[in-house]
């Protein structure tokens, strides 16, 4: 059952990204182009997701274990530090340059878009570079 929840979550998440328009880097960039021909659609993706998420997290917070009996792993950190902000800025810059964030890049890869593979390999390299050389010690 755990496996069913895992794969179904990934599938539904991916379908949501496709339906919402996030799997098209051009649409993502049109959303980020506030001062050009702005396409506000993706704000509706975030709004819709949070509208459901608020109830899910309110329910999840009251539980000790999940439906399948696993411990609830909801983040507890409240630390706002330089790394959180610099990390966000670097991510946002990469997002603006390529039009891909991690989820949509995986969906694009699944759909057979070859350049998405290059993006993902570079992203994995970036993650390793961070963990090897830039991680907090």
């Amino acid at each position: 059952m755990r496996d069913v929840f895992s794969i179904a979550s990934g599938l539904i998440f991916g379908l949501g990204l496709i339906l919402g328009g996030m799997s098209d880097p051009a649409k993502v960039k049109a959303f980020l182009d506030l001062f050009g021909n702005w396409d506000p659609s993706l704000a509706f993706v975030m709004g819709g997701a949070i509208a459901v998420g608020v109830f899910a997290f309110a329910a999840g917070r009251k539980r000790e274990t999940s439906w399948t009996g696993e411990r609830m792993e909801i983040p507890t950190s409240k630390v706002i530090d330089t790394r959180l902000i610099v990390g966000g800025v670097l991510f946002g810059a990469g997002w603006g340059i390529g039009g891909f964030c991690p989820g949509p890049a995986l969906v694009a890869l699944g759909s057979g878009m070859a350049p998405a593979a290059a993006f993902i390999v570079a992203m994995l390299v970036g993650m390793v570079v961070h963990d090897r050389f830039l991680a907090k010690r």
Partner: protein
Amino acid sequence: MNIDWNAFTPWASLGGGLLIGLASALYLLGNGRVAGIAGIVASPLRAVMGGGSLAPERARLLFILGLLLAPWLWQLFAPMPAATLDVGWPTLLLAGLLVGIGVRMGNGCTSGHGVCGLSRFSGRSLANVLAFMGAGFATVFLIRHVLA
């Protein structure tokens, strides 16, 4: 500011958002985990690089498999919507590198800090979201309206 009404897809985007929220709810309530894709990718990667076991990564790997299969499921019912990339490979590699470093340093991306973090009213996530949204707007502004 000029809104591109022809490209505007509020209903489809809202529907997509609701599906993403539903998926995050299933992963949270079903498996007790936060559907943050940066972390879902980074954790098995760390296991592989460190020579650790992939067994604890099962839920994450299956979630990734679901994401990869989503376009196949979609195409059983409808053609994939157009997806256009306007940058070449070297630029895309730079973008990927920045995204990889950034999401690890900030510990999350559009899903973990964006959808899940804001859904649980986390101030920490809001700070990260403001940073990446601001940087995203600024980057596209620079590329399209200053450098171009």
